């Protein structure tokens, strides 16, 4: 394998620029704020997708519980926003003013201890990153140290997603139950519901997304990224070479969890609520679908996958609600059977060679012209 010393090679740089132009210029200029907000919602799944590319595409660890981390990040943010929205002045009609409305409905009279840290904004930001990371560390350490992998890991992460959903729905007084945490208003005193705020949030999100893309690209290009690939292909050889396979897997899983959590926190800000329907098994598998469609080996593919599948979902389910699940199911089967590397694989196998050939034929023509002009016969 040729190791590229540059951060992006030529085609990746093109991909990066194309995505940047689309997200920073084309979409904000061409869409109204409602549609742009939808795009922002789709992009929150791109964060999860980038994490999955690292952990599933490169590390070979399929997690069916990314919704857990998406949800943890989202809930951390939502708890902060909810506490801000339920100040004593706003909640005077409740029997206990100053606690979130759903707690009041469920006869709670004081704030539970795990809500208290979320009064502070810096602690919340820290929690968004740390809570999922620590959670992933515990799961990862318990599983990978015992060499649980592959199918078993997928099923157990899925079970964890199920457990968390049941827990959130069941503990209505502490979590808001099936409705989730709704009616969020301000972030640190700044109203997030206005159109202006939505524009700003969109750009913040896109900037964060590019930050995550660069971070993932950095991980991919370092020795760590190559060890991940080696582990996926021949785990035992890596182990025999003296690497601690478990630690690398734990790292990849934690990184994916943190990316997902950032996406979840942005989701809460963009959409204005968080509910268990973004935590459970179905959303977790859908997140894997986006990544698989985009291409499990391509960071940009994951972003495109999240954008395109969600766009198709919205437009199809708007006009043909019956067809949508058929379409999604068929798409998924087709991707797995025929295009295991997704859209980016199609691009790399069919589109890229043509472009290269086109460029190469031009180059060789001009090169041939040069030789004809200048070079003397041998």
């Amino acid at each position, binding site marked *: 394998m040729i190791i590229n010393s540059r951060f992006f090679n030529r085609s990746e740089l093109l991909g990066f620029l194309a995505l940047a132009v689309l997200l920073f210029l084309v979409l904000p200029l061409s869409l109204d704020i409602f549609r742009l907000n939808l795009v922002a919602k789709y992009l929150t799944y791109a964060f999860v997708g980038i994490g999955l590319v690292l952990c599933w595409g490169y590390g070979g660890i399929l997690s069916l519980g990314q919704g857990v981390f998406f949800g943890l990040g989202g809930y951390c943010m939502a708890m902060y926003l909810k506490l801000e929205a339920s100040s004593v002045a706003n909640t005077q009609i409740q029997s206990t003013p100053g606690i979130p409305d759903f707690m009041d409905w469920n006869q709670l009279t004081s704030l539970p201890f795990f809500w208290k840290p979320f009064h502070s904004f810096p602690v919340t930001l820290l929690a968004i990153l740390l809570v999922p990371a620590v959670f992933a560390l515990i799961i990862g350490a318990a599983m990978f140290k015992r060499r*649980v992998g592959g*199918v078993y890991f997928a099923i157990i992460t899925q079970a964890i997603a199920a457990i968390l959903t049941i827990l959130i729905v069941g503990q209505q007084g502490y979590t808001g139950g099936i409705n989730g945490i709704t009616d969020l208003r301000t972030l640190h005193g700044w109203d997030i519901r206005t159109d202006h705020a939505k524009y700003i949030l969109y750009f913040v999100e896109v900037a964060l997304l590019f930050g995550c893309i660069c971070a993932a690209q950095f991980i991919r290009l370092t020795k760590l990224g190559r060890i991940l690939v080696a582990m996926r292909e021949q785990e035992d050889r890596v182990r025999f070479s003296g690497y601690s396979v478990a630690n690398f897997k734990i790292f990849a899983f934690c990184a994916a969890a943190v990316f997902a959590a950032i996406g979840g926190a942005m989701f809460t800000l963009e959409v204005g609520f968080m509910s268990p329907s973004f935590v459970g098994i179905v959303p977790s598998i859908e997140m*894997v679908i986006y990544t698989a469609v985009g291409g499990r080996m391509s960071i940009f593919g994951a972003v495109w996958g999240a954008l395109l599948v969600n766009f198709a979902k919205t437009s199809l389910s708007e006009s043909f609600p019956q067809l949508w699940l058929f379409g999604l199911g068929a798409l998924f089967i087709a991707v797995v059977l025929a295009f295991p590397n997704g859209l980016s694989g199609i691009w790399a196998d069919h589109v890229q060679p043509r472009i290269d050939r086109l460029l190469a034929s031009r180059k060789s023509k001009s090169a041939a012209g040069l030789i004809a002009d200048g070079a003397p016969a041998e």
Partner: protein
Amino acid sequence: MFGDYSISDLGAILAMQGFAGLILFSVYVLMALGLAIIFGQMGVINMAHGEFMILGAYVTWMTSNAVQHVAPWLFPGYFFIAMILAFIASGALGMLVEWALIRHLYKRPLDTLLATWGLSLILQQAYRSIFGAREVGVELPEWMMGSWQATDSIQIPINGMFVMALTILITIAVAYVLFWSSWGKQVRAVVQNRVMAGAVGINTEKVDRYTFGLGCGIAGIAGSAFTMIGSTGPTAGQLYIVDTFLVVVFGGAASLFGTIASAFSISQTQSTLEFFLSGSMAKVITLLTIVAILMVRPQGLFALKVRK
């Protein structure tokens, strides 16, 4: 927790919750048996297993309606016809799916998971389009209604007993087919070493197809039994799929006995806890315990010793 109950009350509660647990156990075993064959023996993760079960439930529902309209004299025994039809329908669909989808993916187990998830979405929407989004329930024949009064305080529903008897029968049948029939030997030979099994003249493709079909057919029977104790909707299969996978993994994937033992312990834990806690907390605690045990003992309760 035990608060105001007297000893005899507690005994009756335990007996009745234990029996409720036994019904749950029957459903788990029926669903997990099919999955244990498909996942444990073939290594295919069939996320659409719940949908095969629901197919069986819908077939039962249709049979019950048809019998009521066409041949009411048959009604007391319609369930046996429905069960056979459910087995055939789910098994045939399973063989079709194996031919179209699964056989291309034997070397990529994680991808079977994704592809069958897509299949389950399609099937769910198909059920919704054909049968409607509302849950349907079958009418039980008279002899299955009511309950048996064991003592003053213990009542045992007859349909529950019927489902349990059915479970025992099917378990014995599956064990016989897998471990004593020559076809079962072929299945296990193919699973252990595909190339060698082919070399001694076993038609491995055919064995794969029938094994998958058998697993799906048993899921169909499970769905059929399921209609006896609950109603069926298009997405009901999804509710059980994670539990069922946990049952199979917890028992040790390749062990039939392990599957039964784990179904028993999981269902009993859950139904006993359900009486003292809310249903959701009982489920959370049960699932958490399983996950915790699996983290300590990833190979499950009864693992075959295999050299990797």
